[in-house]
């Protein structure tokens, strides 16, 4: 585990999980990533990122009731926990601070 640093994809997934609130599981997250962020990611990658986020301690998980369309298997539902929330805030503040710091002239011409 390379510390608690949040990768770009990890950050997006974390946000999507937060967006989906009570229905954040593999396929739903993947769909959201595709529709909202226009990112095509394989299901295994989604799972991998989720596992990593959980290992870093930003996500909690629980099993849902079993649903027939999943061949009787339960969903593993994720929610962003306090630590996750904190890291997202932190990242957002850092970005905002950086945005603030851009001198007006820098972006004028482009």
């Amino acid at each position: 585990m390379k510390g608690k640093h949040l990768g770009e994809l990890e950050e997006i997934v974390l946000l999507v999980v937060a967006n989906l609130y009570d229905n954040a599981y593999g396929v739903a997250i993947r769909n959201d990533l595709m529709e909202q962020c226009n990112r095509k990611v394989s299901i295994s990658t989604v799972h991998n990122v989720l596992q990593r986020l959980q290992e870093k301690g930003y996500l909690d998980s629980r099993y849902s009731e079993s649903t027939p369309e999943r061949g009787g298997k339960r969903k593993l539902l994720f929610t962003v926990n306090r630590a996750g929330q904190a890291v997202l805030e932190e990242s957002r503040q850092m970005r905002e601070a950086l945005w603030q710091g851009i001198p007006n002239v820098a972006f004028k011409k482009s």
Partner: protein
Amino acid sequence: MNSLPQTPGWVDRLLSRFCNPQLLESIEGDLHELFREDIEKAGVAYARRMYVLHALSFLRYRSIRRKNRSKTHNNMNLIINYLKISLRDIRRNTTFSAINIFGLVTGFASLILILQFVLFETGYDRFHENGKNIYRIINSRYQDGTLVQKGAITYPMIGPALETDYAEVTGFTRLTVGGRTFIERDEELFMVEDYLWADNNFLRIFNFPLLHGNNGNALSEPGSLVITESYAESLIKPGQTSADLLGTTVKVNNWDFPVTITGIAADVTDRSHLQFDVLFSYQTFIRLAGEDADNSREWSDFYHYIVLDEKTNIPSFQSKLDEFGVTYFKNGEVSGAVEQFSLQAMHDIHLNPDLQYEYAQVTDGNFVRLILFIGILIMLIAWINYINITTSRALQRAREVGIRKVLGAYRRQLIGQFLTESMLVNVLSLILAIVLVIIIQPVFNRLVALPLSLSLFMENSMSGLPYFALFLSIFLAAVILIGYYPALLLSRFSLLEVIKGKIGKYGDMLKLRKVLVVGQFAAALVLISGSVAIYRQVEYMRQQDLGLDISNNLVIHGPQLRGFDSTFIRDFSEFKNSLSNYAGIESVTATRHMLGDRLPKTFRIHSPMDPERSDLGCNWMAVDHDFFTHFEVPLRAGRYFDWYDHHTNGDDVNTVILNESALALFGFENADQAIGEVLEIEGRGQPNFTIVGVVDNFHQQSLKKSIDPLMLLPFYSNSQFFVVNYAEGTADRAVKLARETYADFYPGNYFDYYFLEESFNEQYQEDERIGNLSAVFTLIAIVLAVTGLYGLVLITLLKKTKEIGVRKVLGANVISLLGHYGKSFLTLIGMALLIGLPVSYWGILQFLQDYPYSRGVEAPVLIGASAGLFLLCVVTILFQTKRIASNNPVESLRAE
């Protein structure tokens, strides 16, 4: 819901095997959901494909795979642990590990060397692209229903006739073998040792690539010549390259036409049954020898190879060949014998030494098989040692096994442990063996006189795999097999049994182990008596009286560059006189056919005793008149030749001397009856030859050949050998004198000599080589068997240290202990000898069948070999027993 298509089951199994079980359910659920979506999107097939892709992509991620800390074991850790334990065990038991590893290294090294030899000998002629479709024509001749000759030579018309008559024959080449000759380039002479007269197809059918020149037509014209690269090196002048020789004209012998070099061929590889430095075109031969060389049905000095279409059915083509023989040779009317033709696959030529008039490089395939057999025996002995010693140590390992089981080891894991051990020991030994082979390769190569190397294993086997892959897989299978038995045995103990002391029965001599020891020593006995028998046979052949005295003889090649004319015989006689005038030169004679060389045979002889037949076949030899006195061949009846029997014109020769064997052939009852009778030998200018003498049989060739009927004829030619007999110990002086006199009489001719006895004994080279090989490997086999025995005895006695101590305290002395413990081993060795003796007897009998002259199976050899082996075992056992039995019982009782 039930109508939902099935997901591929193997993918699910794979996932459940490799994924972290805690995550499995959610993964499977997601996959199912996607599967359903995909079906709706693009159908079942697409969905299945995607399912596989999705599922497999999970295996990439470490976070999803099974975790180390989960209940199941990580294989890597376990294997490392296995290795660690194995290494510890090897180190702790130095003696047994050394015996094991020494045995296996020796076994592997021997087997590798033997396999090199076998691969070398069996891999001849594989470089010809079309090799498996090339066949040589074999010619068998029958008279009165008995086979009189089965040779590699046949008539020159066979090849062209076969190609015209049968569609299956897609090509042929014919050739004949030349003796020694000389090439003259700008007044410098170069000797040619091996040459062939080969037709234009030769370079097209066989893969002997030309470096310069055209394979398609290099040998098409009369007077064309192809030489090998290294021969070209000797011919070029400083600053030239071999390419410059192309188109060069040379003079050959005293031919009246120039010869042009039309090709430079790459050197012929060692593993080719055809060897040559120089090829003359067959057209040249026809030009020199006449049309007979193209179409004769009586002159058979020609070798034929045909190429058969791949789809040819060989048995049915053979029956066509039978008809062919009848059609062209009319059951004996044409050539004096019933001619039968058969096929020999080119790849079989090298390992079949039995054909007459063979010129190819051949080895006895039986010897190759024998050596391979010895190699396998050695390996078996080595592995038997391994199994015996490993299982014997069961007692020592039993406690370890018991503890492991208590600590929760499964039996499967214990088997894994022991398998790893045997794998480690074997692989380690194999690596050491390869290193050993690299070190002793030069010595071994000198012993077998072959350029062997490990690279032979890179060649492809019949199955298309390289040999090393083949052997490596056999090796692995064998290692698992031999590792499995001890593993099963050792892992069987339960702690309860160990504590109760019930394992004693495993530690003792198991039935299987007894059988293995008996087998080992029976094999050792067969090997010992076999190698002694080979050695004795070679010695016998070399020491046997040949019927003539070949010692202290110098052979000089006759003056080939001097034309044969009316003065030749007189000149030689003067040469003879002036050379034998020197003190120390005993006598000088000449012969066309040297002792040890193969003799020509003629088939159209008529004897007065058998008026019906004119087709008797007999070998003949052209000799100088004092050949018999020179070599001290005793006379039976009549007289020796005298100078007046010689005639410059061969057609005037009309006398013959027979050997004893020929008497029976021609129907004479005794030697005196034959004197004065006349033999008709057709095909000569003048067919009538008066028998003037009969001499004792002598061995013209080695004792591997029986003495055939022989006619000695007083013919002369310039390709004669001169033979100089000198006083013992004056060889150098004799060479010097002969060289000077030769130069006086035959200026410009090449003086080239050898010693007769040496060259005659070269006929036994092959037998000696095999004798040496089998002796070396027998020695190794014995050492291995005895080492194994040593180890077994040691283990058995170590287990009984306490018992021995108790016995000693109670009053047993060393001698009685020796008897007590040695008995069971010696019984086994005794049984081994009982089995080994008849097998050895039978084996030696088979071996000697190939030799017409032998001492038969010698009882002393068998008895000596058995006694020697037995003694060796007794010493081994004594040595061990004594060491332990003479320990102070106080110490042995205190042990542990």
